[in-house]
């Protein structure tokens, strides 16, 4: 219940010397791989790695609504990226967000799509459906260059890293609210370092799984 239970630092020497890499392995307390987690490496201030990354063109992400579920569950965005909600169900969806970075709501008829929403501020917006309580998706907006989402195997690989000291943040929608996010500082010494990190996350149940939160216990 206290969140991060263990951090296992794996040190290895894999790959070319010029490109350091951090590979993060994520699992829950039951040992299952954790996907849909966002891992962010932030170079510490004054670090050599604290270099501005090259800007890239904004992208438009479509959040589909199929079978009364948002797809994907977590969408990583860069500030300035756009997002569109598409209703692929044959029911209405009332998409809303009270997030600080973006507040919106639309009622989408079947087959309808929302207008593009431009996400300028970094942060997390939880988006739900007021009609279907179990529907939820997260828009993770970050400017940090070394950010990636874990795959089905629970792995996150972040490469092209300059040597220096970094802070590793892990975020997952089912982390316990009110608890501090799992964080770890690592040092990348050489350009060809491959740093393996393992996080065991304490996760709450997937809210999407419960069809009716009102009768959770029944």
């Amino acid at each position, binding site marked *: *219940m206290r969140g991060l239970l263990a951090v296992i630092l794996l040190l290895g020497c894999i790959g070319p010397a010029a490109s350091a890499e951090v590979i993060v392995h994520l699992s829950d307390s039951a040992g299952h791989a954790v996907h849909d987690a966002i891992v962010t490496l932030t170079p510490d201030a004054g670090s050599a790695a604290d270099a501005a990354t090259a800007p890239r063109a904004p992208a438009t992400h479509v959040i589909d609504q199929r079978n009364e579920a948002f797809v994907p569950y977590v969408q990583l965005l860069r500030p300035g990226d756009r997002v569109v909600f598409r209703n692929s169900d044959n029911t209405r969806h009332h998409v809303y967000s*009270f997030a600080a970075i973006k*507040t919106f709501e639309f009622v989408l008829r079947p087959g309808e799509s929302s207008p593009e929403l431009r996400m300028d501020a970094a942060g997390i917006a*939880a*988006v*739900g*459906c*007021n009609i279907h*309580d179990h*529907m*939820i998706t*997260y828009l993770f907006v970050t400017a940090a260059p070394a950010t990636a989402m874990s795959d089905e195997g629970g792995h996150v690989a972040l490469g092209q890293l300059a040597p220096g000291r970094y802070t590793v943040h892990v975020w997952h*929608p089912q982390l*316990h*609210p*009110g608890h501090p996010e799992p964080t770890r500082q690592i040092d990348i010494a050489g350009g060809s370092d491959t740093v393996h990190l393992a996080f065991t996350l304490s996760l*709450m*149940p997937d*809210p999407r799984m419960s069809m009716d*939160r*009102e009768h*959770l*216990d029944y």
Partner: protein
Amino acid sequence: MRTMGFRLRLALFFVATLVVVQLLTAALVYAVTRRALVAEGERQLTANAQAFVAQMDDISARVAGNVEVLSLDYALRSAIAERDRGTVLSVLRNHGRRVGASRMLLVGLDGTVEADTGSTVPTRARFPFPDLIDSAYDRRTAAVVAMDGKASWMVVVPIYAPQPVGLVVVNVPLDDALLTHMQQLSALPRDIELAAQAPSGSWHAVARGDRRSGLVEGATAGHRGLPWKPLLTEVDGKEYMVLAQRLKQPKQGDRVVAILGYSLDAALSPFRSVAIAWGALLGLGLCVGLLGAWLTARSVSRPIESLAATVRRIAAGDYRAAPELQRHDEIGQLASAFGTMTEAVRQRESRIRHQAMHDSVTDLPNRMAAEAVIDQALAAGESAGGALLMIGLTRAPEIVKTMGHALCDRLMRDSSERIRRIAGDSYLARTSDTQFTLWLASADRPAALAAAVRILDVLNEPYQETDLSIDRLPAVGIAMASSGEVPASSLLRHAEVAQFAASGSASALSFYDSATDPHRPERLSLMGDLREALDCNALSLHYQPKQDLASGRIDGAEALLRWQHPRRGWVSPETFIGMAEDTGNIQRVTRWVMASALAQARRWLEQGLPLRIAVNLSARDLEDTALPEHIGRLLAIHQVPSGQLTVEVTERAVIGEPDTALRTLRRLAGQGIGIAIDDFGVGQSTFAYLRHLPVNELKIDQMFVKHLATDANDQIIVRSIVELSHRLGYRVTAEGVEDQAAQDCLRSIGCDHAQGFFVARPMPADALTAFVAGHAAGLPIGSPS
């Protein structure tokens, strides 16, 4: 203290048994009921504790459900998400009323209180139960918390918009009202209280049900731990079973438990009416039992008391039949047994009485009965006198010895039947083994004689049996009764005396004559007087002189005993000597006589009178083997030469006990004492016999001397005796010399001594002294010598 009667004891025993049994039953029932109730109480308490927890869960689910519904409210979500505190507060209040919460809080994800309906000022304080917040995301979270002496039910529900944005905390006060409400809505027990632990460790009630029984104080009194298992204790003076039940609680805050109680008193109350009814029944049963016991006891003891009275009556000799008891139970049997026994006792007693009063052989009344009947007849004075016939069969003892008792019994029976034929209705009794007694009331002498003769006639016919004929030799003594003079016993004795007399006589018939009765009762008193007289020297000796016929001198004297009785006057020696012989007193008398005579002889010797003293010895004296020594001692004491003493014995005495008497006589003779045979001539002694005796002297009986002067035969006899005696070396003394002629005749015959009135009458010793002196002086001169 008076002993309890049988009736009372029986009744008390019944009642006591009833009471004891009832009380034991009551105690048993109470114990069993109580144990059952305690077990039931334990079961109920455990079940109730679980039910209470379940109900709390129920309430929390309901409250949580309500809050969850609330949390899905879009407006609330937006208000919370947008941190619109005013809206949030109003929504919380609104919903708080719906779920019955006294206070609702909005707690942020970081655990700070963002809104609180209980306080208008935003505090941003930390929510005091963080573990409730933590678990709220995972599961429904509700707990009892206690703060500041109050308990409340706290339900924590996270708010999703759509991700968690905060938590609503619902605070439902757990107060008396809620507890009462819960009790009313459910089957919860009436006795339930919540207790919180103060920081000091003591427990105090924070909420009580409607009973307000003080369970908390009762259960935790005496610094016991909390009763996690059912515990029997006392609450407010009533018996309770108490059980503490843990409640869901956060880590922080005071500890709170529910304490459930099960009142044994209340549980027993349904039994109270049963107990009252039972008590009434017991009382009624007691009364009925007492009454019944009393009646039963009375029906038992009444007849027993009556039987006891009857038995006392029987003991007193009243054999009247006991009152009949118409019962067939044990007492009836007892009464009937008593009746039988009484009859048996009565018959036995009458038989014993009959045996006591009757002779078993002849079935005639016995002597006692006869005495009683005759006494009665005499006392009643029915007749002036009467005759008592004593019929003795003198041969009876002999018949028994030779023929045996059986035959004698048959003979007596036959005799009684024969007498009965003569006697008719007169009273006939068998007064001894050999004697019958016939009482002829108002019979006079001739009638009695006639009856006696007839009886003798019938009894003289021999008793006949096969080859046997026995003579009975009856004798009849008749005593005439003059009315009221003598008792029957005396009359019987008289008749018996007469019968003894008759059995020796030829006619076998004799009337009682008191003058000749040797067995008069005064004899016995006379003997007593005689002993007294011996002791008091009331006897005296007279001396009859003996004259030497040849010289005419008085040279001896016979000592003769004289008794002047203080009341009777002069008592004849014949009377009391015979009695003394019969009663064994003669030896004392003889010794007294001997001592007195020798003392006198001594005095005469001193006076120059060497008189030869003769003392009579009885036949009994001769049996006294110590007599010769005694006489020897007396002679020595009085310094009298033994030749001065002569003892006189009768022929009969010598003949009766020849051996002992002879020995005694020989020893006396050996001592030099003269032996004289008294009353010679009337007995059966012969000279041939006398030759064996150490005899010195014969005294011719006065029968031959009295008429000596005139009777030629007597002269011949006396002459022969004297001559023969002289030839045999005996001196001869003639007794009963009463005249000159006899004296002359005796002198002429050659008799040695004369004794009799003509010589001198017996006289006191002093008179004799004078007489001897005078006689010596006045000796007829020239009297033949």
